[in-house]
């Protein structure tokens, strides 16, 4: 019997949610068969079975969130399926072979030091004295109002109860499991309770709008996006700059190559690969932008790994084209198509989203002609390709022509560089974009 644990799906990811189980106990499991679908703060991914055999027990039910490393399920490996099944059967009754179960909630505070059991019943003072001592200790203000036992935490989580609204009847005003159960039995009021409690909180003095509203349930992905963007904005002083580029040549070239590409690859060839190729080449000349903050160091990377921001109905993800600097336009096109398709179908793997050194955001796809991107922390710069529009442009010699124009916006972490590098990068990128013919 082998235990499958929650993998670390992404840097800094500490937990994951089981979206669905794709195998049920007793199902045959081939190597790399998907066992379940996991959503983490970073990716939603199917967990390929590391073992071959028969699906054993499911240890974490659908919808539950557990820490990285927690046991998710067991697989009875095929080479030894019969023996282990037998051994497990013996173990269950005989007491051997119990593995640790899931530990979804980390033990934070030591729950009971103050009320820990005395070494034994007999060593204590006489019973009456002990009982009154216990009663006495209950009267003392030990601020246990905000200590929640594992059972209380679980119930609150399962039923979305704001524990601040539950009256505690336990020692020191502690909210007991029974208190939560009683509150639950009184009816479904957790949502109704929320506005009154937030309205009663005069912390900022800002008046809270009255009137009906609904609480938006945050998915792990949403929470992570919020966390990362907040961090980027809080930590990185960001500067913004924009250039305009004439990409008539690039558009023409795409026009010449797209039919052949569609025939060969079965996907559309967009402008983004041309743009990305130019970004890669420019980064080679301005390596200061191809960098990350790691362990309090600013690390300039030799490999150019470009993150492509993809907005999907599941939230923003930034899959990474590893070694993008070594790819041709066609190679980049294929990579972008593949990653984007997998982002939309939630099929990204851990390695698909980890380790980018620079990010390209195709804001033009929404029709935007100027935007202020937020640096994808811990990277130090992000560039957008805005919408390509035809405009009359004054050319050299004061001739006016209709050209395909694009705005390119750059946000950068001012701690990592100054306008000199950033401006140089953007100017060089402009030259490259305009050099397509």
């Amino acid at each position, binding site marked *: *019997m082998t235990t499958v644990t929650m993998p670390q799906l992404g840097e800094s990811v500490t937990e994951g949610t089981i979206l669905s189980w794709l195998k049920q106990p007793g199902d045959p499991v081939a190597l790399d068969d998907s066992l379940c679908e996991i959503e983490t703060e970073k990716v939603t991914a199917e967990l390929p079975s590391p073992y071959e055999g028969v699906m054993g027990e499911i240890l974490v039910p659908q919808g539950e969130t557990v820490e990285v490393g927690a046991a998710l399920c067991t697989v009875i490996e095929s080479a030894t399926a019969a023996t282990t099944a037998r051994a497990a059967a013996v173990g269950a009754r*005989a007491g*051997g*072979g119990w593995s640790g179960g899931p530990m979804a909630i980390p033990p934070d505070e030591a729950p009971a030091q103050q009320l820990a059991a005395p070494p034994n019943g007999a060593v204590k003072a006489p019973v009456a004295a002990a009982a009154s001592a216990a009663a006495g200790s209950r009267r003392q203000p030990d601020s246990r109002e905000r200590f929640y036992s594992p059972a209380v935490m679980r119930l609150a989580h399962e039923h979305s109860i704001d524990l601040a609204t539950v009256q505690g009847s336990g020692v020191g005003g502690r909210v007991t499991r029974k208190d939560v159960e009683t509150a639950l039995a009184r009816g479904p009021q957790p949502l109704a309770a929320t506005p009154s409690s937030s309205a009663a909180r005069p912390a900022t003095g800002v008046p809270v709008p009255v009137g009906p509203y609904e609480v938006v349930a945050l998915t792990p992905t949403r929470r992570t996006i919020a966390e990362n963007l907040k961090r980027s904005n809080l930590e990185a002083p960001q500067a913004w700059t924009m250039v305009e580029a004439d990409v008539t040549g690039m558009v023409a070239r795409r026009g010449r190559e797209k039919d052949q590409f569609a025939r060969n690859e079965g996907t559309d060839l967009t402008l983004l690969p041309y743009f990305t190729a130019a970004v890669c080449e420019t980064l080679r000349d301005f390596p200061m932008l191809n960098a990350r903050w790691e362990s309090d160091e600013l690390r300039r990377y030799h490999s150019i790994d470009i993150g492509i921001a993809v907005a999907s109905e599941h939230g923003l993800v930034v899959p990474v084209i590893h070694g993008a600097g070594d790819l041709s336009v066609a190679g980049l096109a294929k990579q972008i198509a593949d990653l984007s398709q997998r982002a939309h179908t939630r099929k990204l793997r851990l390695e698909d989203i980890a380790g980018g050194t620079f990010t390209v955001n195709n804001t033009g796809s929404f029709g935007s002609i100027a935007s202020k991107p937020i640096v994808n922390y811990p990277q130090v710069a992000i560039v957008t390709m805005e919408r390509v529009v035809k405009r009359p442009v004054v050319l050299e010699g004061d001739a006016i022509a209709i050209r395909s124009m694009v705005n390119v916006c750059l946000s950068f972490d001012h701690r990592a560089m100054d306008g000199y590098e950033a401006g140089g990068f953007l100017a060089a990128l402009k030259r490259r974009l305009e050099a397509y013919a």
Partner: protein
Amino acid sequence: MTSTRTRRPRSHQTIDEYLLSETQLEDMYYHMLLARRLNERMLALNRQGRAPFVIAGAGQEAAQVGAAMALKVGTDYLAPYYRDLGMNLVFGMTAREAMLNLLGKRDDPNSHGRQMPSHWGSTERKIVTQSSVVTTQFLHATGIGLAAKLRKDPIVVLTSCGEGSTSKGDFHEALNFAAIHKLPVIFYVENNGYAISESNEKEMPLKHVSDRARGYAIQSATVDGMDGIAVYQTVRPAVDQARNGGGPFLIEARCYRLWPHSSDDDDSRYRPKKELEEWTKKDPLTLFRGRVETDGIFPREDLDEIEHRVEEEVRDAAQWAMMQPDPAPEDALGHVYKELGS
């Protein structure tokens, strides 16, 4: 094992004196030799790094084979100790199985890789499983004797140990109980001179282990354990007597541990070289060959042929056993309890 040799005339008068038939004598030599050659091969495998541990019975083959041959194989019980390869061979264990046991292979019938080598046991062959804790088997044998007596089954149990084990409480509790209830148990002590490094004088205040029987009113004897024929001649009447309700018997076979205690032991630290040389002259195999050749029981060619046959068998056993499957790691979890019907 089929033999192709041509038989030569024998001195039947001498055979009658031995109380052993010609076939039995051949068997005796074959089993003693097989035990020795297996032990030699096992030690070689240990030195090659193929077997982690060897504990052998070199020097005790006559004591083991002679005693086991006095029992009814298939009927009587054997509760041996770890040096008793010779006894187990007489009780039906094959050379290949002995090698499986050495290597802890999956199909070792003794313990399937769960015990150290030389911890014998086979319910089918009526060999009682034993541990590394010495002398516990004396009580198991006594229990089997009690059960047989309650069931009125005409069987005998032979249990064996080294002389070092006779200091343990279980030895005395077993002799005491078996004597009180007149149980059909042969307590057989192979006094090989050493309990690891401790010589006899450090183990007991008596000259003979057999003297311990007096405290329990048990009949006892001391026999030359280097002489398989003498061993048989001593044990056989005791077995017959026990089978007929005569009660237990304590027999001490004076033999000698020609090798160190185990593959991990260096006996030069405690054993006088001269003593070893003296006893090597009385090697039970040399002794047996000399005696049957002198008495004209077997011509040299016949004995040589047995040698050849045994060597072939041992070579095959080692080669075959090394190819056999190891236990699966998860096999460690099974058989903690006996399930009804399993």
